[in-house]
């Protein structure tokens, strides 16, 4: 079974990079251009793992995590935060918000894929 990834990032460049890395590694790739759209398409995509940027228009990454982790439809799908900052403060904020893990930009493909596999337990 292919692992479905939903990547939420407002940067076309980052979305492209993720698409190339992840499709190359055999993931099924879906993307959204901002937090609001990410939350909106989440039920339809029904991903096995979510990757989200923090700084985004409309709804930021924390808002995405909050939306996915609260309310009656809350999900326990792993959420990986993609961030340019590697500060402990941000990591603990992400964790407190309900993120499953984080990866620092720029990421290398191998680490990203390995983290995704680790979080989903799927080979791809």
């Amino acid at each position, binding site marked *: 079974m292919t692992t479905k990834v939903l990547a939420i990032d407002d940067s076309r460049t980052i979305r492209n990079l993720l698409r190339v890395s992840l499709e190359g590694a055999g993931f099924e790739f879906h993307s959204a*251009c901002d937090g609001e759209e990410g939350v909106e398409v989440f039920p339809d*995509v029904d991903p096995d793992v979510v990757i989200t940027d923090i700084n985004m228009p409309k709804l930021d990454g924390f808002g995405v995590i909050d939306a996915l982790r609260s309310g009656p439809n809350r999900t326990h799908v792993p959420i990986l935060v993609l961030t340019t900052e590697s500060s402990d403060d941000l990591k603990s904020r992400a964790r407190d918000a309900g993120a499953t893990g984080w990866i*620092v930009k720029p990421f290398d493909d191998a680490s990203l894929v390995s983290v995704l596999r*680790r979080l989903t337990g799927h080979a791809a």
Partner: protein
Amino acid sequence: MSGPSIRDTFFEECEELLEALVEGLSQMEEDGQNMDVINAVFRSVHSIKGGAGAFGLDQLVGFAHTFETVLDKVRDGEIAVSEPLMSLFHRSGDHLSDLVAAARDGTDTQAETEAALTAELEQHLGEDAEEEEFSFDALTLDLDAAPPLAELQFVIAFSPHRALYQNGHEPLLLFDALAELGQIEVTATHDTLPDFDAFDPDDALLSWRITLTTAESETTLHEVFEFVEGLCDLTISTEERPAEIIPFEPMTELGDSDGDASADHPPSPDPGAAANAAPVCKSTTSSAAKDARGPKPTLRVDLDRVDRLINTVGELIINQAMVSQRIEELDIPTVAHLTNELEAYKLLARDIQEGVMAIRAQPVKPLFQRMSRIVREASDATEKKAKLVTVGDATEVDKTVIERLADPLTHMIRNAVDHGLEQPQTRIEAGKDPTGTIRLSAAHRSGSVFIEIADDGAGLDRERVLAKAIEKQLVPADADLSEPEIDNLLFLPGFSTAGQVSNLSGRGVGMDVVKNAVQALGGRVSITSQHGKGTTFTIVLPLTLAVMDGFVISVADQTMVIPIASILETIRPRTADIHPVGTDCEVVSVRGSYVPIIDVAENLNLADRITDKTTGILLLVETELQGLVALRIAAIHDQRQVVIKSLESNYAAIPGVSAATILGDGKIALILDPEELIRLAQSRGPDPVNQLPRMELRHG
């Protein structure tokens, strides 16, 4: 991979982000408190940094980071928005733009500028600038990195908090990861389990004891637990060493703690649900700051494809004209239906053409935004105060026109600040705002694009302009010129030279170059000036470069096309108006002025000169090289829109000819370039153009 590379996409996106940045900064100047605006500005810089990092563009990343850090402080309210700060931001934005361009083109930027800006930015960061050390380490999971150690037995006590499950973690996966490191034995502790009735599905009830025999280091083990740190109680100890206890954060309760039964943990992705196909990204245009009103869905299309489509539509138009003509030639008794349908075909073809042309059209906004930088630089260099006001920046113009307009516009804007505006003191004395205004506007009017560059400066000093033109022998010393004529002297080649204008707008480039550039786009430029009120330049451009209004003419036996835009007047001369000059040349008198005649057929080596003076038509054109010239042709047949086809790419360049088109009868017709024709005539030796003084268009 086909299509643009990711790197290309990045630079394309950078352009959008820089545009959003400039716009955001302008909005910040008006409303420094608007958090949405500040956030958008921050995001623009941040996204550039993020993308640049992925391509290892370290210099860009470094500067963007410094810039972003200061913006972050503004966002947090630690730094107040002020005029000097906005100036710094603008200059930083400019430099960021330079860095992007340099990274794209593989060129260098000015290191001094960067050092100065960075220093200035860092002043705002205060003492903690040092601490905010910028780290760009990718998360390392390199399991081979640690030197091989002797095998040790670790004992791991792992007891998850409920937040661990809520955050989407799965203990089994952690055990899997540990199992990859060596021999593992996992024992669940379930003494804490309450009675079945007392189960709270959200509670974390199980804990585990793991023994792991591995050659890996303890650090590697901790890495496995990196994401769950703080979400569990964890101790890792070795047989040999005393237990190390990781400091724990207090247990974090997340979500609703009312024991909502819908939550299932541990999470298990449902394989059944995977069958539902999922929509992908609906819109790919979300650039950082365009979100206020929600981005319109757009489609990115390779420019080549659009141009191919435009070309095909051009063929369609030609085909339509041919079909109409053929049917006409059949001379069948008019069938009303057929005529109506042919007419409908023509209209549809035009609609398609307009629609396709609209794809290439882009708003002038990015171009106009770039000009604010020019105004800033020019006012700094001249110690004048100036602001740019743009009007109608949503006006759409062909992409190529926008690209080719950048240089002339830059030059004109510099001129407007440098020559148009007065020094602040002078302005105050004249009762004006010390800050001058450059108004840059665009509008569509009657099938053309109008671009105006207006300053509210002192207006042209006509006495000086005339004196200079006389001094440079561009006009006779006793010339009696009207005001518009004097104003138009500015466009003469050789009017402005580097030696005489300031080092800012000079650079040896005169308004004649601007005029040439505009004319090359099939447009024209004019000037009006009012003493004490300012000067306005107006550029009129065609909406598209792919079609053109032209006269279908005969030259010798050939059918040709000449752009209507270049023709001032058509004259059917009387014998008395034509006068020989010397042995080989002729002039025609047009309302008291003598205008040299150039025989087109002769100059293209198609035929000998038309000797019968009364046959033929004269087309009065105004050229850069020679001022007014009369082109002699055999006849004018028609006026129509023609599709421009490049000769260079299909055949070869022909002197005097700019392009070709296909007419309704299927024949190829050359499109004449009057300017090149004059050049050709001049190179042919004795000719009226070399013997007569240059003439200018008389106004009125």
